[in-house]
């Protein structure tokens, strides 16, 4: 008799569990379908045409500084960089020199996110690798992990605040490019891309990699740009043509 009771109890318990798990709405699975990384319909990416990028132009860098309040202290060891231009001098005779805009590559498998002890670095649903500066403790593991040196540490708090719609940062956190996520949420394109287009070079193309009809997808199909150090297997979403 007691055995039957126990069996009945287990059956009833299972029924209750199943009812709550697959209850009205099936919210668990819906949440995954909408917010999960794999299922999002947007995946932002950028292509930089190095043939069009002129060596002396630094419009993207200064636009980023004003848009995101990235400080310049006049001392190189304290200065923050979200996007910077690197001059590439070839060691092969006959090859041309160029200057590359370098920024966060927003890797599909970001090593900075893997090493973050507080999960402050995370991948947003649209593929942007972001730092939650509220959570960052400034341990700088991510700076060591990033092979592209896209991250800088904030040693000093900033005084000037050119764009007051965007938060600045307090000292003791790590910062990097986030593709101007606040602008993307408003339907605009990142400040560097806008500045590049305005300057007349038009070397930067920005768009949704998952949309086969977008400009960037068409460009990738026709020109096959490559990411930097693809052998790392991180699948960067900033691609370069002519490197």
């Amino acid at each position, binding site marked *: 008799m007691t055995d039957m009771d126990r069996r009945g109890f287990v059956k009833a318990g299972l029924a209750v569990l199943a009812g709550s798990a697959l209850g009205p709405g099936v919210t668990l699975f819906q949440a995954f379908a909408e917010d999960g990384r794999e299922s999002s319909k947007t995946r932002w990416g950028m292509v930089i045409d190095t043939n069009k990028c002129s060596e002396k132009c630094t419009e993207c860098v200064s636009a980023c500084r004003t848009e995101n309040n990235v400080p310049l202290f006049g001392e190189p060891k304290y200065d923050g960089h979200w996007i910077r231009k690197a001059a590439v001098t070839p060691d092969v005779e006959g090859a041309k020199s160029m200057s590359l805009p370098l920024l966060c590559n927003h890797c599909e498998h970001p090593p900075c996110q893997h090493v973050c002890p507080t999960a402050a670095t995370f991948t*947003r*649903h649209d593929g942007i690798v*972001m730092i939650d500066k*509220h959570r960052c403790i400034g341990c700088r593991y991510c700076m060591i992990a990033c092979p592209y040196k896209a991250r800088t540490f904030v040693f000093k708090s900033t005084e000037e605040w050119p764009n*007051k*719609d965007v*938060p600045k*940062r307090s000292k003791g956190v790590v910062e990097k490019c986030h593709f101007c996520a606040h602008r993307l*949420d408003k339907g605009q394109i990142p400040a560097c891309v806008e500045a590049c287009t305005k300057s007349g070079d038009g070397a930067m193309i920005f768009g949704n990699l998952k949309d086969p009809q977008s400009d960037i997808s068409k460009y990738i199909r026709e020109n096959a740009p490559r990411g930097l150090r693809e052998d790392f297997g991180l699948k960067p979403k900033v691609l370069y043509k002519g490197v």
Partner: protein
Amino acid sequence: MNGRQAGVALVAAIMLFVATPIIYTAAGNGLFRKPPKPELVLPVGGDGKCVEVTDYMRANHMKLLVHARDRIVRGGELLPKYHIEGCKNCHNKRAEFCDRCHSYAGVKPECFECHYLP
């Protein structure tokens, strides 16, 4: 009065004698007075309504902001209602509104180190 009662009375008298200046000083420094309530300058802009009722906002605005923060920053949701940047549409004088209660309650929120509120 026996000896024991006399001893207790003596101790009580000594304690009162010692404590009197302390009590006087504390009273002078406002121990028995309630500090005046902070005077808030309510915003004039907007339609006079916050996103929730006033009493709820007084008690819980920090919780709303923290929860919205996680959903906006980490989830990428667009939540203009609870976004800290939306506060300044009406509350455009931090020194006369936010700071008065914060200094009264002795809390030091770190929001304004990075987020601009005029």
